């Protein structure tokens, strides 16, 4: 398998970087200054402008891309190193976002529920998802030939994604403290329970974090491709050294 070509610092990634920075700054202003306190949650609602976008990015976008790339790798007709590197880069960013989701949710829980953590169905299934993808990243590090490592990582990725619908449905299947879905609920898609500047702030947060994900994915993919090429080069240097030793001895 050949490593895909690497383009470092293209105009597209630079423009994407600036768009990301501006949209994140706007989200912070909207969330902390413009949007009003919630009737029930008061100011703690401001944490949800981080919690919801990071959860959306981690579970549906990052892990979705990882699963899709893994399936494309497992399918012989589309098998390529590109899909394996994409899956790994997206999963790492997803773990980062999911870790933030748990952290922000924990702080919100401390304010609203009075506890940092409770073994609620939504929280527990999310923590399990976090551990599953940490395991996926660990599997990627297990020494093997690139083909074997990529194939077993892809299988683990597809298996780990099975927890995502369980996390999504956990608020429906079990009695939980966690509130129901505000927007991603098939019964409320046309009538979301959020309005005005709060809805716009949440939407802007989702857009800003999606741009951040795209920017991080582009850079993390480039790094993974460079790591691949560096490992190939190190291997070639070692082989050349052994050959030279064999000739001289």
């Amino acid at each position, binding site marked *: 398998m050949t490593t895909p070509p*690497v383009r*470092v610092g293209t105009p597209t990634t630079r423009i994407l970087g600036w768009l990301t920075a501006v949209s994140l700054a706007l989200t*912070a202003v909207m969330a*902390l200054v413009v949007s009003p306190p919630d009737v029930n949650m*008061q*100011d*703690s609602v*401001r*944490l949800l402008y*981080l919690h919801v976008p*990071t959860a959306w990015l981690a579970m549906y976008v990052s892990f979705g891309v990882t699963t899709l790339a893994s399936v494309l790798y497992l399918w012989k007709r589309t098998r390529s190193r590109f899909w394996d590197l994409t899956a790994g880069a997206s999963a790492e960013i997803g773990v*980062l976002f999911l*870790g*933030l989701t748990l*952290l*922000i949710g924990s*702080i*919100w829980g*401390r*304010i609203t529920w009075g506890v940092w953590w409770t073994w609620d169905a939504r929280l527990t299934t999310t923590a399990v998802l976090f551990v599953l993808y940490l395991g996926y990243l660990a599997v990627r590090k297990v020494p093997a030939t690139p083909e074997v490592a990529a194939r077993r990582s892809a299988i683990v990725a597809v298996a780990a994604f099975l927890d995502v619908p369980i996390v999504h449905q956990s608020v429906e299947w079990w009695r939980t403290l966690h509130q129901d879905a505000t927007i991603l609920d098939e019964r409320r898609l046309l009538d979301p329970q959020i309005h005005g500047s709060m809805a716009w702030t949440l939407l802007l947060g989702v857009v800003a974090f999606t741009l*951040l994900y795209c920017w*991080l994915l582009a*850079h*993390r993919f*480039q*790094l993974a491709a*460079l*790591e691949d*090429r*560096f490992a190939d*080069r190190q291997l070639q240097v070692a082989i050349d050294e052994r050959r030279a030793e064999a000739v001289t001895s």
Partner: protein
Amino acid sequence: MTDAGYIFAGYAATAAILGTYATWVIRRRKALARLLPPGDK
């Protein structure tokens, strides 16, 4: 800690974690790019 303190801590932690990760990715990418000959990038 007050509610405002918790909210500030949440935003500060998010900015610090994402900023640290983005910086690590870019620095490592640049360091590796320097180690590889131009034809290998």
